[in-house]
């Protein structure tokens, strides 16, 4: 309980600091003020990759150990991943409209592949809602989590495989393709968002555990009409 609040507090401090740095940095010579959105867009996209990767790992963990906690963590990770991937898509579209002049470019492999990854995990969440038995749900979603994770390298390297509008990775082994102020703001936000993810993951997994326990109680409770017993038929009646 304390760890969760400590992580969320730390993330809030980091985000306030990181976002204020992004707001105060000098405006970009080419992109103007729209470059500031990178402080949210890149960390959100990174968290999407991290969350979906962890969904697969926790899914494997469940298949190996059959511990319910693994399933709760996988589900929580997928939920947070969908939230942050959605945020990355929206902030990317806002940035695209300001910089490229269009919010959505159909020829861009990164945009299309990220949107498809987003839909795969919406399907993951829909699958979890459709399956009622906890063990069957965990098993099915673990498999989908593993198969879905195959898209992560495709989305990440899409900017290298296809030469499209979206720029290649901002940070590469040979250095960063941005000014130091922008890089610093982005890295602080990256760290803050990652801590936020850890806090939300623990929080949501705990909520799922409680929800599951409540649901089990509901299933065991008598239904309306269960007290009505049909009369026994006598032979010859």
């Amino acid at each position, binding site marked *: 309980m304390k760890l969760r609040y400590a992580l969320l507090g730390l993330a809030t401090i980091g985000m306030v600091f990181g976002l204020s740095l992004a707001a105060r940095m000098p405006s970009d010579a080419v992109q103007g003020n729209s470059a500031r959105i990178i402080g949210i867009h890149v960390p959100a996209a990174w968290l999407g990759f991290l969350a979906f990767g962890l969904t697969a790992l926790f899914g494997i963990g469940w*298949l190996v150990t059959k511990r319910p906690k693994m399933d709760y963590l996988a589900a929580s990770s997928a939920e947070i991943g969908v939230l942050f991937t959605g945020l990355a898509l929206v902030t990317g579209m806002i940035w695209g409209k300001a910089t490229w002049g269009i919010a959505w470019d159909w020829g861009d*492999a990164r945009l*299309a*592949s990220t949107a*498809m*990854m987003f*839909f*795969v995990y*919406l*399907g993951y969440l*829909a*699958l979890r809602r*459709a*399956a009622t038995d906890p063990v*069957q749900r965990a*098993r*099915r979603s*673990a*498999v*989908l989590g*593993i*198969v*879905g994770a*195959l*898209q992560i390298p*495709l989305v990440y390297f899409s900017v290298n*495989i296809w030469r499209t509008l979206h720029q290649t990775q901002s940070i590469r082994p040979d250095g960063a393709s941005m000014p130091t102020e922008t890089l610093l703001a982005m890295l602080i936000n990256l760290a803050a968002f990652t801590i936020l993810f850890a806090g939300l993951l623990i929080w949501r997994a705990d909520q799922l555990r409680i929800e599951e326990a409540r649901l089990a109680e509901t299933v065991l409770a008598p239904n309306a009409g269960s007290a009505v017993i049909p009369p026994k038929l006598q032979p010859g009646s």
Partner: protein
Amino acid sequence: MTFRRQVMIILRRDLRIEGRSGEAIFVTVPFGLVALFLIPLALPLDIELLARIGPGMFWSVTLLFGMFITFRQSAAESSSQQEQLRMLGVDPAARFVGRAIASALLLLIFELILAPTMVVLYAPAAIPGWPAIIPLALLAAVGLAMIGTLAADITASLRSRSALAPLLVAPLSVPLLVPAAQGLESLRTKNGIMVPTMFMVAVVLALAVAGVVTAQPLEETT
């Protein structure tokens, strides 16, 4: 019994059931053809536009309607059939491979009927070296068959299966659709199709590994 023999038995069984029911060939294939007919009716009468979008429509219809071949009712095993296969010691991976090959063969037939229909209806400009598309069509069929087989197993016996399975297949098959469509464009611009072909081979191999590895836990869901 060897793995290969198990695969062959499952494959023969699925094809025999399809031969008797005709669900893929007599229902889904005409459904796909109807889609090819409907799309031009919803667009302005522009022969050049149709010629441009024809190949793309072919891949879209293959994906959107081909997935129903992989979910066909005749390929769904009842719980008693599955229990029997389990008791006989049939490897779940062999079941996955056999069923995926059967679906891939049916998808190839689907593509073979769809492609000439698209050429007749949309009259796309002749593409030099078009036979090079055949390996792409083959890889698309195999990949889509594996994704469909996986999705069918993941959603087996769920009430919302008919809506949920396509929701899973459509986004997962984008890594097949994009290089397949790009291959055609590469041929048109004379850039060669080695890159999209190798990309599709990598996707198909990754799917095969995922399908075989997850076959055992998925069998326990049914």
